[in-house]
């Protein structure tokens, strides 16, 4: 290809989305991916597409992203397996329900209405299989879930159709300023040059930042998930809990995905994750308590994807604080999948115009200096 205008580092959902939005703006984008697109967190996450429970700073971005999700086929020519069966966060006690009510009030005070408190009766209607002790929930009706790998690949394909280029198996080893452009070296000895860089390197993004003399306190994390054998269909929305981590969803084929926030261990240089079955046991116990119907289910597989968390559990989005023409989008801390469509739009806008109308100040990397 002729020289790209922007180099995107990382072929996860955020990198693929950035490439697509850049290409749609007529900007030549080159994506450098060290493994293959969707290899890590983007391809193997729980697939939740939710506004529910977002950090207040993330709510405007999440709502803007959801608008894209609701017409995702128009953008990537694939439905991405997206369904809008809602997301539910259940309260297991009156005390928890009070917390949820306070949360809904807080969100409403900010001017948003997507989170809705429902009582025990309505919870039973929405989730008939829920355990008797659950007393209510927050319900986000238009939230849902999608197939993460299919989505990431759909973004990749759409980006290529729009004119972006991908090189997979290209691990970035160095970034250097040369005149008015950036030179990017990869492990195979190749160099590329572009006027701007977008850093979507996920759990490896701190290494890209370090090349710019910028500190990014990324905490590489291995979020564990497991899946059951096929069960008769019994639930449509995605369910989470209040005081313990859970992400619970049944697929069309009957298998049930059980996630949460429990962590395995990892070696990010070897692309390797170790599962901690004591943590998965806690997830299993949560499901045992919340869904008695699952007590005889079998667990057929567990895994973990490598993902970047930030110390404050919200991402880094925005320009570099030290290097001109470099823009970050990483550290989504286990809830970046839903934000993928909008984060790419933001970084594409930043890389081409230098600004965006969305409120991204809370995500600036300078908060860690």
């Amino acid at each position: 290809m002729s020289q790209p205008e922007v180099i995107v580092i990382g072929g996860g959902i955020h990198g693929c989305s950035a490439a697509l939005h850049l290409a749609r703006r007529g900007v030549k984008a080159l994506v450098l991916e060290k493994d293959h697109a969707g290899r890590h967190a983007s391809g193997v996450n729980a697939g939740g597409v939710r506004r529910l429970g977002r950090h207040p700073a993330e709510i405007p971005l999440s709502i803007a992203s959801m608008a894209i999700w609701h017409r995702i086929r128009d953008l990537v020519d694939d439905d991405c397996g997206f369904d809008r069966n809602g997301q539910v966060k259940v309260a297991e006690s009156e005390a928890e329900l009070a917390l949820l009510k306070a949360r809904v009030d807080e969100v409403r005070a900010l001017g948003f209405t997507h989170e809705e408190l429902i009582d025990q009766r309505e919870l039973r209607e929405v989730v008939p299989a829920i355990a008797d002790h659950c007393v209510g929930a927050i319900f986000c009706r238009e939230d849902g879930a999608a197939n993460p790998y299919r989505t990431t690949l759909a973004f990749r394909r759409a980006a290529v159709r729009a004119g972006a280029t991908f090189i997979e198996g290209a691990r970035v080893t160095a970034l250097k300023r040369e005149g008015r452009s950036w030179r990017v070296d990869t492990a195979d000895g190749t160099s590329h040059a572009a006027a701007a860089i977008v850093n979507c390197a996920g759990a490896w993004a701190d290494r890209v930042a370090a090349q710019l003399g910028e500190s990014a306190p990324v905490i590489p994390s291995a979020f564990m998930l497991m899946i059951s054998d096929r069960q008769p269909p019994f639930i449509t929305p995605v369910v989470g809990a209040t005081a313990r981590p859970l992400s619970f969803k049944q697929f069309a084929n009957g298998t049930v995905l059980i996630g949460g926030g429990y962590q395995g261990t990892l070696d990010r240089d070897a692309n390797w994750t170790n599962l901690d079955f004591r943590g998965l046991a806690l997830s299993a116990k949560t499901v045992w308590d919340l869904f008695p119907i699952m007590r005889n289910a079998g667990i057929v597989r567990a895994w973990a994807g490598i993902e970047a968390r930030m110390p404050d559990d919200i991402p880094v989005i925005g320009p570099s604080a030290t290097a001109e023409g470099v823009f970050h989008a990483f550290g989504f801390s286990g809830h970046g999948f839903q934000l993928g469509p909008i984060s790419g739009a933001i970084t594409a806008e930043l890389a081409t115009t230098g600004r965006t109308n969305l409120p991204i100040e809370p995500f600036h990397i300078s908060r860690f200096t």
Partner: protein
Amino acid sequence: MTAASPIKEHYDLAVVGAGPAGLAAATLAARLGLDTVLFDEQTAPGGQIYRSVTETPAGEPTLLGADYWHGAGLVGPFMESGAQYVPGATIWSISREREIGVSVGGCSRLLTARHIVLATGALERPFPIPGWTLPGVMTCGAAQILLKSSGLVASGKIVLAGTGPLLWLLAAQYLRAGVTIEALLDTTPAGNWAAALPYLPGFLVSSYAAKGLRLVREVKHRVKIVRGVTALAAKGGDRVEEVVYRRGEAGEVRLPVETLLLHQGVAPNVNLANSIGCTHRWDEAQLCFTPVVDEWGMSTVPGIAIAGDGAGIAGAMAAEHRGRLAALDAAHRLGKIDARRRDRDAAPHAAALARAERGRRFLDLLYRPAEAFRVPAGETLVCRCEEVTARQVLEAVALGCQGPNQLKSFLRCGMGPCQGRLCGLTVTELIARARGVPPSEIGYYRLRPPVKPITLAELAALPQTEAAAKAVLRG
């Protein structure tokens, strides 16, 4: 043996699998003073080759053959070795830190070992022909399990098809049990003889030669043998009704059948080793992935050794010796014997291993299954669990799917309860041929625990720790 003892939280050595390699390894390790436990999925020792050797109802000695009864000679010493024996135990996870997840009697626990010997043996190679999932079609291995453990044989019109020693062995055992076999359809490619011929001298001096020839002769006189079969399909409605085959350019032949028994060799059962992260390489002669091990069976992961057919197909006698070598090395690494003693004690086993491996190369090349029977096409099922066809796999490759792991995400192929045991090799070769690159470049599924399903209830009842509870509570 201490069958009734409770499972401890820690052992010097854990052996997985009570076939010849596992029995020999555990016996010798315990004698050398290692606190040893042997976990086995079956209810009685013997593995697949010596399955039910202590309790088979097919007790007529000549029926199963002298090689089978050799297994009893491994079980006796094991029982007296002091190693703890845990039958009915499913190992569903082993971490790189050698934490073992085991399920016994519907209850799971975690324990650790300083050293682990995987002796998980072999699996039958998939035989993906049209109709291979119809009721009435099964593998020769499955038929042998029924014979050894329950004394049962298939009934009605029986046809055997495929290639490899087990095909002939089962035919002979069936004949001895008084079963009539309509035909044996031999799919061994004619060209294999030329490739194998240079290794014939080694084979002729091996223990396989005389026994093998005797078996073939025994079967040939009493069963119609159809050589040079190049295409094979099982047809029927609710169950198999006929087998359709071709020989080269000749026309289709149809045989009515009630039971079709398929076999085209075995491959190492690498699921546990793969899930631990041991490095594997493609073996072009045996057409399978084999873990990389040294002369003692040590894998690329510290503390994990692999013995027997799980480390590469070499047969039951070789497995036994490889088990003993792994035990000696374990005793050395755990400080029970010095290197000199290990090497001295290993010498006779290494020599016996070399003798047992003689002739193997000839068998590998002679019985190398034809590509037509390894790489299916069209609507033939590849993944039985998720019902994925060859055509779907090829379409995914056309969409940019590069390998088996992406295929899991595309089609759920290999993600059912069997964890790829019945489709892994087929998928690798199918993608390799579609992309025009060797299987070594395509690789295999990355397997994840639990490598065998466990119940949610078992998992929920595992002991929990504070460290594990450090979760990221989101939103």
